[in-house]
């Protein structure tokens, strides 16, 4: 009967004379662990706007909005911390490797959700015929660089490339209005290209 009491007394005394185990958090800053998985953040330089993070996110915490206004397209990726699981799937599946990275920020309480949201905008390449989205400009450039010579098998990538090295004269992007055979090699969406394939020179389908 006596011994157990002594053992527990020791522990009690030790607890009594040591610092409180709890921290005074808001007063003293908390330092999360080195590998802590906090709020994901986009990197302006390395994110190319492919939208893979949006597709793999298990909790749909990332929104992808494609806006087309006055013939200009913008892709906006918005990360909502309120839905995020901090699982890191977005970081893991990012095609460039560090377009989105989990930071160590844990303090994401908010009054206005916009304060904690992270967003990134990209320019979209639109089909010259129908105005449909082909992809983010930066994404296509990234693919072109990655593919090297193989990129010359794909008309949109070719025209991106000729544009970049200033070989484009403007003739390749002139459109007659109707989809015709020559449009195969221009900046058109897959739908319009299919249409162009099945039309003959006269523009008849």
């Amino acid at each position, binding site marked *: 009967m006596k011994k*157990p009491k002594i053992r527990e007394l020791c522990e009690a005394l030790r607890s009594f004379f040591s610092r409180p185990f709890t921290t005074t958090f808001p007063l003293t800053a908390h330092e999360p662990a080195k*590998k802590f998985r906090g709020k994901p953040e986009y990197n302006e330089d390395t994110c190319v706007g492919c939208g893979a993070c949006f597709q793999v996110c298990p909790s749909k915490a990332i929104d992808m909005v494609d806006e087309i206004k006055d013939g200009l397209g913008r892709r906006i990726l918005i990360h909502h911390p309120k839905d995020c699981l*901090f699982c890191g799937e977005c970081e893991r599946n990012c095609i460039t490797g560090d377009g989105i990275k989990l930071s160590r920020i844990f303090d994401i309480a908010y009054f206005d959700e916009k304060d904690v949201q992270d967003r990134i905008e990209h320019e979209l390449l639109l089909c010259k015929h129908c105005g449909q989205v082909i992809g983010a400009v930066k994404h296509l450039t990234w693919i072109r660089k990655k593919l090297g010579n193989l990129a010359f098998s794909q008309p949109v990538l070719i025209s991106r490339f000729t544009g970049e090295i200033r070989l484009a004269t403007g003739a390749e992007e002139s459109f007659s209005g109707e989809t015709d055979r020559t449009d195969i090699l221009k900046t058109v969406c897959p739908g319009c290209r299919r249409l162009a394939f099945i039309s003959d020179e006269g523009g008849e389908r």
Partner: protein
Amino acid sequence: MKNKKRVIIPIGPYHPLLEEPEFFSLYCDGETVVDVEWEAGYNHRAIEKLSESKHWDQVTFLVERICGICSTSHPFAYCNAVEDILGITVPERAKYIRSIIGEMERIHSHLLWVGLAGHFLGYNTVFMWAWKYRETILDMFEMITGNRNHYAMFRIGGVRRDIEDGDIPSLRKVLGEMEGKLEMLTRAVLDDPVLAVRLKGVGVLTRRDIKDFGAVGPVARASGVDFDVRKDDPYAAYPLVKWKVITTGNGDVFDKAVVRLLETFESVSIIRQCLDAIEGKKGEIENQVREVPAGQGIGRHEAPRGECFHYVRSDGANSPVRHKIRAPSYVNIPTFKASCTGQTISDVAIILAGVDPCYCCTERVAVYDAGNKKKLYGFPELVEMSRKKTERIIKGEMK
């Protein structure tokens, strides 16, 4: 009498907080409980259905959120199930890491239980201390996996993060300290005269009861049924390390506590052996899985509360076509019918806690007088009565 008992008045509050909220009705004759009824299904989150709409990798994170305490047991069982369909094994290093995570979780879950049990008995110091010790394990989780809970370590084919050599010394240090604390706690429980009077012979489940109800985990092992998935259906690194299944024979709440406490020592030893195996070595931590073929698979994991079971069927597409989950509390909770009947009301709180169901589940208890079906007590009153009884024993008024 029997018909009258069927009148169940669901008494709130219904906090849809954790998994498995249940509704209990205790029918009492004076101080003695004569019957227990329970209902489940108040908080249907449609996890199984939801999982059919997510692709294979996303489901891991979905099932991780079934339970807030043993959050790794569901991904563990799920990954085992999908790997069963694939017919692959994970790399050896991943096996060890999986077991380390599983056992660390067992330690923190059991400590949490010890704390809660102390709280119900009016030993709030035990509650504070056990949770204090548990905190260091949670810090280790943050260091290794990046989060205190919901570790997101599992992935079909392996694990997502490696345990780096730099992290191992601090983990070993925590384990060493933990062992001392656990030793203290276990001895304190084992030779405390008040706890012995309070818990021995309370809420007894016989081997027969365990078989009848199909109970699993520490509840079954406390009654001498040595059923443990880690031994009986080896997976991950469990066949590669030395450990033993803890069983005791009395089946009362005291034994359930003892089984849990002793299991934490086994967990510490398993983690140590796993760390030895991976320290200073490099290796693959995952097998790339391109697609899941059509087929069906089952996966099991010995969660801290017992066997966690997942059944997954695939038709070769991107997401499961059927995903069935059975959590251990689901089979353990019906044992209340056997363990509570014939006991006094003041013991009910600890008997219910002895099974280690989620705390919020038991928040819905209401006590009825067998005669007039009036609601007498809610769970807070039950806890209060439980504490009073302990006090009376301490003061020597009761034996």
